[in-house]
C-alpha cells in the first residue's frame, strides 16, 4: 500500500506540476517579474503615473524596501541571509530559463507533497481512491491551503508591504490546519456536534484575524496585484483538481498493473 500510495502521488504530483508550471509561467511569473521591476525602481517612468504629483519615485519606493530585506535588482537575490549584518550574496537561479526550471522544480516538489497529503487523507478517512473521491478531497485541499489563507492574506506580489513573515506563516499554517479539520468534521463526521465544531474551526482563524498588512503606498499598479491574486487562486484550483483526479486515476492504474505491490 505504501508503494502504491507513493507511486500514485508521484504521478499525480508530476501531472499537476506540468499543468501548473505552464499556467504559472504564462500567467503569474510575468506579473512577478514586472513587480520586481517596480520594486527595484527600474520601472520608474510608468510608476510615476500612479503616484501623486510631486512625489519622486524613490521616495515611495524606499519605504517599501525598508520593511523588507531585499537586495539586488532581481528581487529573489536577498543578500542578508546571514544573521548579524554580514552580507553574503545568496545563491539564486539566473534569470530566464534557470529561473523557470527552478519554478518548475519547486512546483513538482509542492505537487508531490500535496498529492501525498491528499493520499494520506483519503486512506485515513477510509475512502477508496478514485478520480471522484480524489477530486472531492482535492477541493477540500484547495479550500484549506489556498482559499481560506487567501481570505486573510491575499496572494502578494514582490514589493507589496506585509506583516512580518513569521506571523504570516504562523497564521497561514493555523488557518490551513483549522480549515482542513473543520471540513473533515463537517463532511466526514457529519454529526450535529461535529458540524457545529467544524463551523467554529472554519470561522475562528478569520475572527482571530490575519496579521495586519500595513497600508504603505506601493509603486506597484493595483491592477497587477488584483490580477495576480485572481490568477494565483485560479492556478491553485487547477493544481489541486489535477492532483485529485490524477491521484485517483494513478492509484487504480498502479493497483491494476502490479497487484502484488499493494500487499507487499
Amino acid at each position, binding site marked *: *500500500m*505504501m*508503494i502504491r*500510495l*507513493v507511486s500514485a*502521488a508521484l504521478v499525480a504530483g508530476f501531472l499537476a506540476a506540468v499543468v501548473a508550471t505552464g499556467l*504559472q509561467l504564462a500567467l*503569474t*511569473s510575468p506579473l*512577478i517579474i514586472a513587480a520586481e521591476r517596480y520594486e527595484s525602481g527600474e520601472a520608474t517612468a510608468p510608476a510615476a503615473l500612479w503616484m501623486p504629483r510631486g512625489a519622486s519615485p524613490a521616495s515611495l519606493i524606499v519605504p517599501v524596501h525598508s520593511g*523588507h*530585506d*531585499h537586495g539586488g535588482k532581481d*528581487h*529573489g*537575490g*536577498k543578500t542578508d*541571509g546571514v544573521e548579524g549584518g554580514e552580507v553574503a550574496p*545568496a*545563491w*539564486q*537561479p539566473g534569470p530566464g530559463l534557470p*529561473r523557470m526550471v*527552478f*519554478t518548475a*522544480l*519547486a*512546483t513538482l*516538489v*509542492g505537487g*508531490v*507533497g*500535496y*498529492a*501525498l*497529503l491528499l*493520499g*494520506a487523507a483519503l*486512506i*485515513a478517512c477510509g475512502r477508496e481512491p478514485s478520480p471522484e473521491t480524489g477530486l472531492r478531497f482535492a477541493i477540500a485541499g484547495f479550500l484549506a491551503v*489556498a482559499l481560506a*489563507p*487567501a481570505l486573510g*492574506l491575499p*496572494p*502578494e*506580489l*514582490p514589493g507589496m508591504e*506585509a506583516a512580518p*513573515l513569521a506571523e*504570516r*506563516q504562523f497564521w*497561514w499554517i493555523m488557518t490551513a490546519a483549522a480549515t482542513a479539520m473543520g471540513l473533515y468534521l463537517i463532511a466526514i463526521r457529519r454529526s450535529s456536534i461535529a458540524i457545529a465544531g467544524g463551523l467554529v474551526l472554519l470561522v475562528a482563524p478569520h475572527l482571530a484575524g490575519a496579521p495586519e498588512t500595513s497600508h504603505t503606498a506601493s509603486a506597484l499598479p493595483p491592477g497587477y496585484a488584483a490580477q*495576480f491574486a485572481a490568477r*494565483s*487562486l485560479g*492556478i*491553485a484550483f487547477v*493544481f489541486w483538481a489535477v492532483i485529485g483526479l490524477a491521484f485517483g486515476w494513478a492509484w487504480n492504474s498502479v493497483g491494476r498493473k502490479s497487484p502484488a505491490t499493494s500487499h*507487499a
Partner: protein
Amino acid sequence: MTTNTLVLTGTRSNERLGAVLMAAFLGLGLVFMAGFAPAMALHNAAHDFRHAQNFPCH
C-alpha cells in the same frame, strides 16, 4: 522504500496506518521545503512558486 514495506508485516490496518503516517510525514516535509523552508537558496529557487501558490514569502 523497500525497507519500509518489509516492516509492514502486521495486519491490514497496521499497514494502512503506516502508509498514512509515512505519506503525511513525507508530504508535509516536501510542502515545507517548497513553501516554507527559510534557507535563502531554497527561498530563491522556489520564489515564483511560493508567490503563485500564496505561501507567505519574505
